[in-house]
């Protein structure tokens, strides 16, 4: 993305923002609350269009504040539609994030952290080179945080790129982008 300017609510969030993310790299976006981290990710995902400048993003997975996991459906049912995207089975992805025993339970009965894990499992389905993660560590225990790190490292190792907005560091080798003064 080059020369990205976005104003929201009459307030300039960031101006002339530039970022190039090569394959195999992970970038962490840091910044104070309200500095535009989430908006930047949403722009990259194509979920927010009120900006000027150029955005050229590869096909991506977006994991926002909200997990995109319907409470009425089990994690497995939630992920089934994403199997169409490419290789990988929903069952395998859920096993990977440690939800092997919970994949048939309606998600509403799972804890916040488990729902977050289900959201992470979606990243493993379909071959999307770019991951956009918005605060992926929220609600996760130390085990979960390690899981995120492993997933990100594995993804980068396979030539994927990760753009991640967070207040904590992921703990893997990542370049740092700062938003807001």
């Amino acid at each position: 993305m080059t020369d990205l300017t976005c104003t929201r609510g009459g307030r300039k969030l960031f101006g002339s923002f530039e970022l190039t993310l090569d394959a195999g790299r992970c970038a962490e976006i840091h910044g104070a609350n309200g500095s535009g981290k989430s908006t930047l990710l949403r722009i990259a995902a194509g979920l927010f269009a009120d900006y000027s400048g150029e955005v050229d993003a590869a096909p991506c997975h977006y994991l926002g504040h909200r997990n995109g996991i319907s409470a009425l459906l089990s994690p497995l049912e939630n992920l089934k539609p994403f199997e169409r995207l490419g290789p990988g089975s929903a069952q395998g992805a859920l096993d990977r994030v440690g939800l092997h025993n919970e994949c048939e339970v309606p998600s509403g009965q799972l804890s916040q952290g488990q729902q977050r894990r289900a959201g992470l499992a979606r990243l493993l389905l379909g071959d999307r080179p770019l991951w956009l993660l918005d605060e992926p560590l929220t609600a996760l225990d130390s085990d979960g945080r390690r899981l995120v790190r492993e997933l990100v490292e594995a993804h980068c190792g396979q030539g994927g790129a990760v753009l991640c907005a967070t207040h904590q560091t992921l703990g893997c080798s990542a370049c740092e982008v700062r938003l807001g003064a």
Partner: protein
Amino acid sequence: MFAVQFRRDWLSLMRAKDEAINPLVFLFLAATLFAIAFGGEPQRLTGLAPAIIWVLVLLANLLSLEALFRRDFEDGTLEQLVLLAEPPFAAVLGKVAVQWCLSGVAMTVLAPMVALLLNLPVGVLPALMLGLLLGTPALSLIGAVGAALTVGLRGGGVLLALLLLPLYLPVLVFGVSATLDTMAGVGAAAQFYWLAAISAMALTLAPFATTAALRISVEQS
């Protein structure tokens, strides 16, 4: 995509049955209230019954539309739908189809009972049901546009009614007059054709408008 979304929403519907049948309960309750309020003179109700039924169906439809996208909006599934769906209108159609099964098909099935409560002659029932079956798709489809626009807004329910009721008017007019004309012994083929035409038009245009509206709503969340 249509089938995938349909199956998904159908499952959700089955898991939250009690919530889903609320509009049907409303339809029944309101019709009962009318029947009781007119208690002394059921024959006066006969002439009004088609209008009452159709208005109640409209309102019940509004009730169930309000919830059409809300849950998905709140848990972030809607974002994923906007990002994933290919083509997006097929997924929207899948959602609307599930809503229609409830608001259209179920209400059509329920209509005879409501009609008998309201003292509508039995001979008119086929016309009433046919009218509902042909007209309710338009209600669901046009309604989905409004629901997509107002999802996530405070006071969305009243706003939804304000946006949709004027747009519902043609369906109401043709639906009621089809039933009335059948009751009067006049053929009502033209009205049925019109209802079907409006539904076909809504089927062609509304999913695209709904998709656009969903994008707008998702973008501001």
